[in-house]
């Protein structure tokens, strides 16, 4: 509870531009990935499509439901909780967590791993692009 308050006070004091620019600079990661996906033949990316995929439930073989929000929060600015282990997973929105979507290898790895777990298959480039523009919309 203390930290967001503290951060926003700090923000007011310093002018928040500082924080946003630093994420924008590093979000070269997202820009690069989006370019890669487009080169591989994806169409325009849409925040709405990404949001829909983020919230969609996929049934598993044993009749349970899986979705991105099983571990992450529906609200990207809030921390989620890992459905199997209970571990807190930090907020996904870059404006709540400036480390998000900044490491190329990490984003690649988790998009692959989490799509496989949630959808039961890897996501195609279109889906990955939609998800990334959705996740990085609130920077």
């Amino acid at each position, binding site marked *: 509870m203390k930290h967001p308050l503290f951060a926003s006070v700090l923000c007011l004091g310093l002018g928040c531009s500082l924080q946003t620019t630093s994420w924008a600079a590093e979000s070269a990661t997202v820009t690069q990935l989006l370019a890669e996906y487009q080169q591989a033949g994806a169409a325009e990316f849409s925040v709405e499509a990404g949001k829909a995929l983020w919230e969609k439930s996929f049934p598993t073989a044993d009749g349970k439901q899986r979705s991105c929000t099983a571990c992450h929060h529906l609200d990207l600015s809030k921390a989620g*909780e*890992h459905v*199997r*282990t*209970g*571990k807190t997973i930090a907020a996904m929105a870059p404006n709540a967590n400036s480390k998000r979507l900044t490491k190329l290898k990490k984003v690649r*790895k988790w998009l*692959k*791993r989490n799509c*496989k*777990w949630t959808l039961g298959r890897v996501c195609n480039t279109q889906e990955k692009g939609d998800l990334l523009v959705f996740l990085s919309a609130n920077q």
Partner: protein
Amino acid sequence: MDNNTSAHSSTEPVRIWDLPTRIFHGLWITFFVLAWVFHEDNRYLNIHVFAGYAFLALLLFRLFWGLFGSHYARFRHFFYTPGAVVTYLKCLLSIPQQITGHNPVGAWAIFILLGLGLVVSLSGLITLGAEERQGPLATLFHPATGLLWHEIHEFLSWLMLAVVAAHVSGVIIESILHRENLALAMINGNKQRPASTLGVPRHGKMALLLCISILLGAGFYFGACLPYESGRACQPFLGPKLPDNVLWREECGSCHAIYHPTLLPQRSWVKILDTQHQHFGEDLDLDTDSRNEIHNFLTTYAAETLLTEAAYKILRSIPPETTPLRITETAYWQKKHADISQLIWQSPQVRSRAQCEACHLDAAVGTYEDSAMFIPN
């Protein structure tokens, strides 16, 4: 009050015990009692150990003061042969001898107490190292000898307690026989003596230095808990720094708590990595380089290194023919957590047995200190 007991007609208070000697005496008793009070419950092991360190530091100071302190505090001054003790005891009832410093019997009690204090402290340090894998002697002694050292430490402490009892009785008996309050003299420093008796300086600065050192030591030791906030768990007692690895921390600490390599034997880690594509229903999907680096780290610092008490005890509790994939399925883990109720496991702060850090403040660094565990409520 006992002005007339002395053979001389006019007496006055003469300072016999300087301030450092008296402060040593008072603090030594305090830490001896503290160590006794906090020796049973593991959660207060940090207090016990601090009392032990302070006790040893005071003892070392007393040894120094016995060589360089003021007249009556010097060992040379109260060094009596056994013969002198016998003579003193024989005369005790007939013609009480007026001795200004320590009398022969008292002197022997003091040397024995100092000697016992030393071996109690040393055996404590060894127990801390052997059993808890802690302190300056951590990992110097095999953990299998821990229990033995523990028992030796306990025996010596009982012995010392017995000598303390004898010392106190001696002081009482002497005080009655000589009609002179010896305990009071150890508090205010004075005895009623003829004016010609040699008095000693106060040595106030040395006393101040002694007190400040102990306070600084306490501040250093318990500093992590300051400023004190009620309800905030703090871990004053940091263990030795265990090996760490950035890649391992990132790869293996993202879905769940990080489990230090010392918590499972090598063969378990090998199997966990060999089955990385079916990791409890997850696919870890580590590339070859990452896999190799993590493999290397996990097997180098596995439980077999005996770096922590938990490492030794977990390892010992696993039958050699089995290869557990879970820490939570080892006999030692199950025994240690058997008393925790289902309600706590399901509480929102815990949620899963594998959330070690919900109850162990130092889970992330792997030390699993006795003083760092708590049950959230």
